[in-house]
């Protein structure tokens, strides 16, 4: 089937927009960014560890209380360590920006991302422009995280078996935490680039500073669900706790590991292997 498509008729517009895939995002080269990029996962885990008892005691209250702190940590990580959307230092930005603008006219960041990309190239020294170029993606990422990512993740939690009729506050807050963990930096770094997001939904992003954390938090939350049914009668086995702790740990591990040279830029192999094996298996 794969061989078919290469020759097949008119390529759809999406396919063409997808073609120049956005390269992996790296931590900015400033020393502050370097240091904070390592401190940040540790900070998150410390937050998780210190508030754990409170979380077990009263999940809703604690989740609500820690959400601003988590948001602050995440957004400062994005602002300090990551290149904002459209300003990617690679040659790609000039290519992707127009394509971006064309494919997603509905979004505000599409055109603006392109503009700021140019602006950053022209005058990076201008501190106002610099701050502005970061402030806008940051606001956008926060807005989208809470308005879009949180409901979507809450829905996913319910689909995976979270209670629908009870524990609604827990579910939504858990989703909000997971969204802040995974989506903030993704949106900050990529804006609403449709090609990138198509890759995100296909788990096809190259491992980098933002994708590793997002994927890690998803996997961590998945594994976090495993101890819930066990009959150990521990209070921390209550619904959102293990999932959230899994997401935090997964995020920290994922964002650290995916920056190592061993994994950086690699993509999750999904079916490529299978295509190779197909001949053998069809027999």
């Amino acid at each position: 089937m794969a061989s078919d498509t290469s020759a097949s008729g008119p390529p759809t517009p999406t396919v063409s927009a997808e073609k120049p895939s956005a390269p992996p995002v790296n931590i900015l080269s400033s020393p502050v960014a370097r240091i904070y990029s390592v401190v940040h996962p540790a900070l998150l885990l410390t937050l998780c560890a210190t508030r754990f008892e409170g979380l077990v005691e009263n999940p809703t209250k604690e989740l609500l209380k820690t959400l601003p702190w988590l948001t602050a940590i995440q957004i400062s990580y994005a602002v300090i360590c990551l290149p904002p959307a459209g300003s990617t230092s690679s040659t790609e930005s000039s290519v992707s920006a127009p394509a971006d603008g064309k494919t997603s006219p509905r979004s505000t960041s599409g055109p603006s991302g392109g503009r700021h990309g140019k602006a950053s190239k022209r005058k990076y020294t201008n501190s106002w422009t610099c701050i502005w170029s970061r402030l806008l993606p940051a606001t956008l990422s926060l807005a989208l995280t809470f308005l879009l990512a949180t409901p979507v993740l809450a829905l996913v939690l319910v689909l995976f078996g979270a209670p629908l009729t009870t524990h609604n506050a827990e579910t939504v807050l858990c989703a909000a935490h997971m969204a802040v963990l995974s989506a903030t930096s993704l949106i900050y770094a990529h804006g609403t680039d449709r090609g990138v997001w198509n890759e995100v939904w296909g788990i096809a992003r190259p491992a980098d500073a933002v994708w590793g954390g997002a994927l890690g938090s998803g996997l961590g939350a998945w594994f976090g669900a495993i101890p819930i049914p066990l009959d150990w009668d521990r209070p921390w086995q209550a619904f959102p706790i293990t999932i959230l702790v899994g997401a935090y740990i997964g995020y920290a591990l994922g964002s650290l590991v995916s920056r190592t040279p061993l994994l950086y830029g690699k993509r999750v192999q999904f079916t490529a292997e299978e295509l190779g094996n197909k001949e053998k298996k069809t027999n």
Partner: protein
Amino acid sequence: MAANPPPGAMGPLWTPNVSKSGPKSPAAQSRHKQTGVLDQKALALEDEFKTKHLGVLGVLAWIMLLHVAGIYLFTKGFLLTRMVLENKSSCDVLPFDDVLNQPQGALGNQEKGCWHEKTFDKAVVIIIDALRYDFTVPFASKDESETAHLFHDNIPVLYETAVQNPANAFLLPFIADPPTTTLQRLKGLTTGTLPTFIDAGSNFAGTAIDEDNLVAQLHHAGKSLVHLGDDTWQSLFPGYFNENLTHAYDSFNVWDLHTVDNGVTEHLFPLLNPQNSTKWDVIFGHYLGVDHAGHRYGPNHAAMASKLQEMDRVIRQIIAALDEKTLLVVMGDHGMDAKGDHGGESDDEVEAALWMYSKRGIFGRTSQDTILPPKFARDRFVPQIDLVPTLSLLLGMPIPFNNLGSPIEEAFSGAGGNNWANMATVNRLTSAQVKRYQHQYGIARGAGDDKESMLLYSAAEEEWKSASKSFSSKSSAARASNELYRKYQRHTLDVCRGLWARFDVPSMIQGVVILFAGIILLVIYARGLKMDRTQLTPRLLSFVGAGAGAGAASGTALGLIGLTEMTVIDFVVLLTAAGSIIGALPAIVKKPTNLTVPLPSGMWGWLAFFFTVSQSFGFASNSYTIWEDEILLFFLTTFGVCAGISSMRQKQTTDRVLGVYHSVLFVILGRVASFSRLCREEQMPFCRSTYYASSTSSISAPWQLAIPFLVTLFLPSVVRSFYVGSKSYEGAAYLWIGFAFRLGLFITSLFWMLEGADDGEWLPISKETLKSVRVFLAQLVLALALAAGTGAYLYCKPCVSINVTKQPEDPTTPPDPITAGQPQGPRTTVTILGFGNVYGTRFFFLVINFALATILMQKPMGQGAIALLLCQILSLLEILDTNALTISNSSIGPIILGVLGSFYFFKTGHQATLSSIQWETAFIPLSTIKYPWSPLLVMLNTFGAQILAAIAVPLTVLWKRPLQTHDRVPASEPSKNPATRLLSDVVQAASTHILYLATINLATTMWAGHLRRHLMLYRIFSPRFMMGSVVLAVVDVVLMVVAVGGVRWSTLSVGEVFGW
């Protein structure tokens, strides 16, 4: 390779047989000859397909027999079963064979006592749940370091009275037979028999005791019985108690230490008042506080101490209020472990206490050693079943028929402890009853009497006769015969324990080994072969046959010679299975080049592997077994998410959009289905049942009756939309889906509406009329689905519509391969609608038939679930197609079908417990029990989801499978018959599906065997093992007969139209 034909492909390349035109020219003449050759070739290919199809069925049958053999061997060693005899002892028939041999005296006299002169008129039996023996005796340290705990020395009254007034009271350790749950214990304490996992009696589903028992005997004798406390008694002995005086309390609220106890005390003492003494004969008071304190706090807690002190006060008050005619019994039904829980068979759990008290001073001790109550529970104990003959004879009742216990010495030896004649008499009566029971049981079982016990019994009888000649109370002969009767009773008890309570571990291991070897072979066969599986069949079957034959012959020979301790049948089964396995190995691994390492490859393979293996490991934990339904939902959603991700990676937009759409649909449908739940007891309080109107009823709520109508309205349309998607809603599909299926569903809805009307008495029509109308409707649906449906399936044409249109000549078009020989005349264009999914849509008719039958057999909520299952199966097939998983024979399709089957088992109101079997569904299309239909109907209700999923398995390779005929096979393998290739794919999918269920079955089997001493064995692991085994056997049969069997007709009908 046209892997993915656009929906409703036009097929100008194929010339269907129907449109063959006559010869017109010399060129056409030669073509005619060629056609003749082609026809012959097609016939040959058809015959080859039919033969190989039979061969494949043979292989599946062998796999099934292997599973049955493994399950049989394991079950024989593991499942302890006991037949429940309906016989009852009666007052005027003594248990002796020989009527002349009966002793004179109080024969059949209710006033003086039935079999033996009664000692007491009345009794107060107090059960203090979980009263462990060491609670009742002064603290005695087993080693130096141990000091008294909070639970020691808080209920001294029992020990004090037994020491101070031995003639008035005695205290003994009272050993329970596991499982130490209250329900099983009450059975033992009243019937005098041993508990087994299955008490195979007539009343299999209910909890009421239908064996002869003490409560029933008292009731029949016209005694007024009062029950106070734990409501378990009410479910065991419904209708036996005096309703005005009885007060039952909920027993499951372990957090509440006082309600039950206060209730018992409140209602007990007024009855002990002399003016009320004529109102009752026997009181059963069941205190739960000690047990609940144990569950909640554990024994070493101040709450336990104060509870025991409260019990001490209560007993002292009862003693004060007691009259001379009344016997007081205080006992624990089991003990508790260090955490305060029970259910298993650890020492702490089985060691309860028994104390009897009477104001008359009739209890004796036969020796100096036994004057004091034993220090430790293991020193000198009585089994709990001994209470039954003791209490029966003391109250002048006949001993219940099934009793295996012995009279307690202290109660019959007289105040002096030397009334050997009385003891010999009661032991003789008990022994005779035990013997009578053994004899009847032997007859029911089809086995003879145990020789050794017969010898012991006749020796005791001899001694008895010699003693009766020179009768005196101190006679040594009486004493000797007493000893011999006693020995006989204990021997019989041991024999029965061996029969009912001892696992046959070697047999279990044999079963596990057979099942394991079966899985290894299945792994190679399903995932490790590169070749066409149908080519393997002749060799495989002949080797298997030879191996099995050799095994059976040597098994019979060795068994008859007597070289083995196993019975001949078991030995033959074992050797036959082993022989066939050994025979199959060389047949499968004949050519190493045909083998691949059967490791999963790619994400899908690993996902399938992960689902199967992680679930198998999960069954080692009782929590994952209890919450299996939620875990399956988690897996299904995970699959759906992975499918969505994979679909996002597809390069073609149609594949991507369709794949993501169906993945989302798949996940949402699963989640919607998960709202249909029937909680098992262990899931409380974290689960709310929605399957029935309320958690305490088994009828549907009125709103649920709308579900069948919604299913009628939507399900055929949904199925239709999947047919329309590939332009396959042609031919028989209109009639089948649009009319017959909808009609059947509508009649089903009417049926359940009438059922609801019957339950709610909404209609002024007699119940009999309603019932006969319902039975008629149900039989109509079944006839439509299974009789007419199968007939139509056998003869139906594929869902295609063929249009032949003549077009004016168009020289620019290159000639088609097949029409090349034709003269350049007016061109004929053949348009075939529904061409893209010709195999899948044809086969799906079979799924529709069984879906209709299954839906009829489900309660309304379950009908919605089955409808969702059908939609999920269809979505799954689309996902498989858009992700190119049907043509690559991925293992994920058949395994997700397995997961779906298991998931919907739970969503149709079932759990892995015996109590959740919906027996009443046998009466949906029948008004009386009819064999073999009734069990089959219950099967269809219970395993409907698994059956439906199994039937859908061939679709994982047939759905949207491109049509292949022998003139279109790849040039690399021209001799290949495409139909056998299809067959090979189908059987690969089927064996992958079996592999999933066989792995689950092996896991549950091994865990149940390994955890056979686990306290949750009877509640969790055993039922899950039984379910896994039955599911495997049912699915083996369904796959072989219906699914793979049905492929024959769908392929033949496609071949008939499109050639071979």
